[in-house]
């Protein structure tokens, strides 16, 4: 773990200011923030792990559990809400069998709600990893999900 994280930590330096960017980069690499990583960061920056948890847990972006291979974010912003975003979320949750914030047992999918992607003219919006899908309907949501489901699972 240390070998993996050291390049990131050294690039940002031993500054308190570096904490959030480091957490973002580490999560980008590992998919989430395991306890071990937090310890390493604490050690490097000279801050206690509880302080780091205090900061990380404040922000919605950070995850402390292993995430699925694909992250599905369904927008619940105003324009999407007014255009039926709730129904899209309900459909996706039902198809995957998990609630927002959860991950499927096979670690294939994680589901999140996001307040706004800024693609309001395409409401309702769903984002899978980095791909934005606009003008969603419940039918389209199911079609998109089944496409991802049919992919072979990525190797560990």
């Amino acid at each position, binding site marked *: 773990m240390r070998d993996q994280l050291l390049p990131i930590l050294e690039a940002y330096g031993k*500054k308190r200011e570096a904490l959030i960017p480091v957490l973002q980069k580490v999560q980008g690499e590992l998919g989430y923030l395991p306890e071990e990583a937090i310890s390493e960061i604490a050690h490097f920056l000279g801050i206690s792990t509880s302080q780091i948890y205090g900061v990380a847990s404040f922000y919605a972006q950070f995850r402390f559990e292993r995430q699925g291979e694909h992250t599905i974010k369904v927008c619940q912003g105003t324009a999407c809400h007014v255009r039926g975003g709730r129904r899209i979320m309900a459909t996706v949750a039902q198809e995957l069998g998990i609630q927002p914030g959860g991950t499927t047992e096979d670690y294939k999918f994680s589901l999140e709600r996001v307040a706004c992607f800024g693609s309001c003219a395409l*409401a309702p919006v769903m984002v899978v990893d980095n791909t934005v899908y606009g003008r969603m309907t419940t039918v389209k949501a199911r079609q998109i999900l089944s496409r991802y489901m049919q992919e072979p699972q990525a190797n560990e």
Partner: protein
Amino acid sequence: MSNSMVEKNDSANRPSSQTLLVCKGTGCIAGGSDNIYNALQREVESAGLRNVKVDFVGCHGFCQRGPIVDIEPEGYFYTEVQVEDVAEIVRSHLVEGRPVERLFYHDLVTNEPIPLYHNVPFYEKQHRIILRNCGHINPERIDDYLAAGGYQGIRKALLEMTPEQVIEEIRKSGIRGRGGAGASTAFKWEACRRSPGNEKYLICNADEGDPGAFMDRSILEADPHSLLEGMLVAGYAIGANQGYIYCRAEYPLAIHRLEIALEQMKEHGLLGDNILDSGFKFQINIKEGAGAFVCGEETALMMSIEGSRGMPRPRPPFPADSGLWGKPSNINNVKTLVSSCRIIEDGADSFASIGTEKSKGTAVFALTGKTRNSGLIEVPMGMPLADIIFDIGGGIIGGKRFKAVQTGGPSGGCLPANMLDLPVDYESLAQAGSIMGSGGMVVTDEDTCMVDLAKFFIAFTQDESCGKCVPCRVGTKQMLTILERITEGKGQPGDIDLLEKLAQTIKATSLCALGGTAPNPVLTTIRYFREEYEEHINKNYCRAGVCGKLVKSPCQNACPAGIDVPRYIRLIGDGKFDEAVAVIREKVPFPTVLGYVCVHFCEAKCRRGQLEEAVAIKELKRFAAERDKGLWKQNSKILSPTGKKVAVVGSGPAGLTAAFYLAKLGHSVTVFEALPVAGGMMRVGIPRYRLPAEVLDKEIKEIEDFGVEIKLNTRIDSTDDLFAQGYNAIFIGIGAHRGTNMGIEGEDTPGIIDGADFLREVSLGNEVKIGDKVGVIGGGNVAIDASRTALRLGAKEVTILYRRTRAEMPASPEEIEEAIREGVNIVYLATPVTASRVNGRLNVESIRMQLGRVDQSGRRRPEPMEGSEFTEEYDTMIKAIGQESVTPDGFGVDVGRGGRIQVDDDTLAASREGIFAGGDVVTGPASVIEAIADGRQAAIAIDKYLGGEGDIDEVLAPVEEVPKYVAPEIEGEQYRPEVNTMPLEKRLSCFDLVELGFDEDKGIEETTRCLRCDLEER
């Protein structure tokens, strides 16, 4: 690097003969523009078009119509382009010179194609200063920005002005912060400049956390250098050497483009230790947000940059005195910085000449929600909301009614239709209870529940509350809890006052603007939409059909009588027509009549309508009713006689329904009808080719079979007389039968007759001579009925004059269709002015109208066009612009405008004890189903008045286990089957029924289109 890099650089970037510009903003990329770009490059190359370049640009702002491809230099604007269209665009437009019309934007009214960008109404009415370059330059190429005049502003500032002069120019422009609070930008810069010390920070707030706002994202993706130049200007002015851009992580493309731009700046000597050889030093770093709305608040934002929890702190000290790491700092929004750059470049006067006295310049809005055109727009401050929503936004999708516009995101407020004239500026919006905010503008329609929307916003701010101060942390939670109760049907009297009190406290005592503004959506929805709150609390009713726990299905919710639509549709699908009718009759005594003529509020809310078209609920009602064998009678009860007598005045749907239910409750009911026939408007308003006499007769007979006595040819003028005859209660349902006057000169000219009178005379079998050429004034069902009746009486030419457009005609769309098919001419936007007799003929002078400003009903007000008068001769002119009631003084009840009887909202009790009223005499001309619903409501109230329970609920259909339902996958589109109609040639010679209903198999198939919304989890 030398200054020459920054000089205007036209020659190197002069466009080749044509350039295809593919939009690569987040929205268009979502639509596949990356693939379109690649495909265009391949096609252009393989077609050997040497003079054609393919390039990409950033967000145009019209994301709804993306992917967008522009062709310069002409400015052709292609919308909703797919990869499959690429070959055609290259071959047809570029090679053969024939543009692909179907991909152009089409006018929303005329459907005419509009090929060029600057003619598209969405852009035509904008004033793009901040967004000037967006969609026109490649955001990843600094040379494009330079060629467009980029970095001239900072050049001028660094080489020709002192920092104080820069601030003075900003002050002269009058610009106020575009992040939402609207503080004077010059004031903030001055304060920071004056602070002692030489370590200062300039921070750009690109967090843009408001849901529904994406202005900053688009600017960063389309024209990052404008922001960066603005930061240089601001940094120079305040004396800072380090800048930060705090950009939310949800905007990866924006961050990517900023990173590229920063590299390019360094290469061109625009960042670093000696910018443009002026000695000015500046560095810019990007900090990504990590998903906290509160970090859009400046003190929380600075905490986040420092690496801490993003929790605000009290001010003073203000950032200008003590900001990032305790040093003087200045935070500005993206649009403020871009504007500042333009102000230095073009001069303050240019900026100050736009907008209003206190709100200078332009504002950028993200116009989204239910508008037909949605996207980013830039307009001068002071433009009225109506112009933005209707002229630029194109009005509401699907012709639905505008309900409210939300400005300022979760910190703002919801403004109703009667505020559409409001100019968009800081003060006007604040006075109305909203705020300008960062620019989010979400438009809602009749299908949005305002209580649900308030709950939505509070849920958001509650979730995003940092938790530091009690008023926000606890207060928003309490407000949310109350709103949740209300939307679940558990609202209590006093809840509204409690919400207001909580709101005031939270606003006054919260630490930062998150808490300080979180109650605004709740306060404005209570202020402007209080009835919706009251309906949720007092009647467990959600009129928009949104709140899951209150709405079994949108169709049933929309029905004034609450008919269990999904259940009867399902029974029809199972072939159980008897039981379907029994379900309908649990709520109304006129299933067949309604199946012929109901205005079907249910269909307007049918969710299937969001796919292809609504289920044919009305037609299916008729379908079942015509196959009914009377199963409903087995369970239909009559209670034992109560000894009470009720008089019902008027045998229309309201009166007959009230009579029916009162008779079933055991009262002795007599209906008094002035005409020789019973049925009210069902008989004398609706022509026989729409509703055959036998159908109506049969359903009235069913009512009489329950003991209701109908006395025809008996006019009632006095309620005293009725009471004297021993009646214990009276229901008045005399309707609205007298035609309203047009208010024109020559109103009484012979030859002008009233529409309702005309229809009544014809239905009574009296001869009415109308001649060959007939004119009809009006746009409602009476006008349509009168015109189709006139044709059947032998008129050769029938013309309707309506003062608005077809989209606004109140008549049922299917009726308008049939009228046109039968040969009725409709002249829109015309209204009569004077009538007279000339040489023995009726002459009517009319004037043409044009649609002007949107008025408080949310519709454009028609205005006469000077000099457009025209005169026509007619044999007869039928006026059908509305009806009033004639309520005799002898009724002894309070009467309002138009003869309408004033009643209590719940009990329908009139001002005199023992008298109740309902139907058109209370509401003005409405519909059969609404009158029936009033009849039910009155029966309940009258029974209670007479000492009963007021319980008219009954179970007529056998109680059943609802079978498990597995929703079938919807493959492709499925529309309604054709309704059989009488052939056109046969129609006009008789009054026989025109619509003949569904074939049996088609009717049953239609029921499969129902989405079974009643089974939705709540």
